[in-house]
């Protein structure tokens, strides 16, 4: 054992474990995706056990591609992840700049802000969809009812009533509906992950070059151009990190989607796989392979973006 070799070998356990973790289930999934394999089928019991005799070739892939939800699930996945990324980065930058300077109680505000990040995804979804967004029993319903009550009483008031009589009555929005369930997921995940973005950006702002800032001020740079030419470029790497970590986590969203509407009007690939897997393992596996391909495409993009910063 020479001096260099043993230290190198120390990474072997980690690499091997991950390799097994990836290859064994993935090769099984690959095999299942080429055979007819269902959990219950009274007419064709031979399909209920995985065997090479039920070879189906690309039939499962064909079936999945032509199923009505597949393209929608991909589109919806990208819509949800993209919206969350957009909102968390914008909000994150704004809030980080806001609380970057010392003010009384800054420590407490930081603690309050970071809290949502520690909440379990399942709890997050249950909390928002039932207690906050519910159109009748949740805070949304109660708030809308309160506002409507105020408008009603204004309508009955003398003089001003004549003006307010043309105001509409507000309708609460049901976030479990087909058209809106994706928005509910975006709202709750944005709430949970904006704090993460804020903390990363704040850490980065702490290390900003103050002398450069002062020079810019002396040269008459206003707040906007300071932000545009100094702060924003400085935040480039942290933004890349925030985007990458979040994309990794949000492409596999599941609990939120299930709890909000059980996939009604709001599916992503993991959820679609889950639906197929209730019975048709072949189709679920084929969808799984598609999901792996999609994840790899996204990964290549992201890792290109962040890879440079990693080894410096």
């Amino acid at each position, binding site marked *: 054992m020479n001096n260099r070799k043993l230290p190198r070998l120390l990474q072997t356990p980690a690499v091997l474990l991950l390799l097994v973790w990836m290859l064994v*289930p993935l090769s099984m999934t690959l095999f299942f995706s080429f055979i007819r394999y269902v959990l219950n089928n009274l007419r064709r019991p031979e399909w209920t056990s995985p065997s090479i005799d039920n070879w189906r070739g690309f039939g499962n892939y064909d079936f999945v591609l032509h199923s009505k939800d597949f393209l929608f699930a991909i589109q919806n996945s990208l819509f949800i992840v993209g919206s969350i990324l957009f909102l968390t980065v914008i909000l994150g930058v704004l809030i980080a700049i806001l609380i970057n300077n010392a003010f009384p109680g800054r420590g407490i505000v930081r603690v309050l802000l970071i809290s949502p990040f520690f909440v379990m995804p399942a709890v997050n979804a249950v909390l928002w969809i*039932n207690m906050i967004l519910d159109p009748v029993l949740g805070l949304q319903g109660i708030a809308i009812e309160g506002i409507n009550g105020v408008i009603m009483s204004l309508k009955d008031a003398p003089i001003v009533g004549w003006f307010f009589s043309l105001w509409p009555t507000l309708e609460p929005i049901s976030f479990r509906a087909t058209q809106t369930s994706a928005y509910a997921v975006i709202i709750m995940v944005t709430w949970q992950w904006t704090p993460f973005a804020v903390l990363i950006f704040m850490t980065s702002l702490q290390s900003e070059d103050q002398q450069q800032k002062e020079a810019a001020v002396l040269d008459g740079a206003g707040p906007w151009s300071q932000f545009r030419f100094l702060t924003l470029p400085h935040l480039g790497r942290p933004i890349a990190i925030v985007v990458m970590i979040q994309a990794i986590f949000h492409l596999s969203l599941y609990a939120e989607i299930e709890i909000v509407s059980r996939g009604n009007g709001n599916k992503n690939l993991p959820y679609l796989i889950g639906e197929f897997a209730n019975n048709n393992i072949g189709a679920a596996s084929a969808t799984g392979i598609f999901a792996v391909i999609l994840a790899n495409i996204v990964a290549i993009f992201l890792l290109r973006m962040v890879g440079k910063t990693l080894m410096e």
Partner: protein
Amino acid sequence: MAIVAQSSTLGRSSRMLLAWGVGLTFFFPIFWMVLTSFKTDADAVKPEYLFYFTPTLENYTNMTENYDYWRFAANSVITSVFATLFTLTVGIPAAYAMAFNPSRHTKDVLMWMLSTKMLPAAAVLYPMTFLTKNFLGIFDTHFLLIIVLSLINLPIVVWMLFTYFKEIPKEIIEAGKMDGVDTWGEIKEILVPLAWGGIASTALLCFIFCWNEAYWTVRLTTTDAATLSKLIEGNRAPEGLFFGRLSAVSAAAVGPIIVLGWFCQKQLVQGLTFGAVK
């Protein structure tokens, strides 16, 4: 923005108010959950009891008596602690090798590790269930959860540790070599004490991710090893008729982690930047 902020007192105080407003807004749902957990199910949905109500511990006693809360909590603690320990045991040597003896492929290995995080869990769930139920017989055991939790967090852990280790000057490690310390000694005597802060915050984050994991823990358990995420899953009220009960279970599941996070937020943030912020 330090210089810009040397503006009027009015500007400063309005910024402060805005900052407080943002902080309180983000915290509000959690506050609301805790508040609701002290209301009865009937009171929780009445607008007139929004803030004025008679607090009761009914939901919490109910939870520990009828829902076996402590068993689920114990399972959460056991699996998260052991998974964290195991991940560090595998991760520290790996990160050490990558940071102090990098080869041409180190960067690719790191990238590949991270890409395993991208593997959609749903795509391999069925094979995992199939294997663990029919072949290995470890379905619904602590052992299985510990292994799975470790593997899904290993890439993040290795990457975070690597970031911390890179900050340590190579000369210190080299000096140890001169004194005739072997590789294990280097890790134990020199590296771990030096990078203690980084290792601790990595461990903490790993623990939080294990605790909050819902997909695998719900689907690879039935009763014996079921964790708190399974309890939440089982308590999902149909159309929210049981807000009090739901809030108590939720608060008891996320409370410990939030408090832990408060105490360690500074170290956590450092680890989360993955070296992107110098």
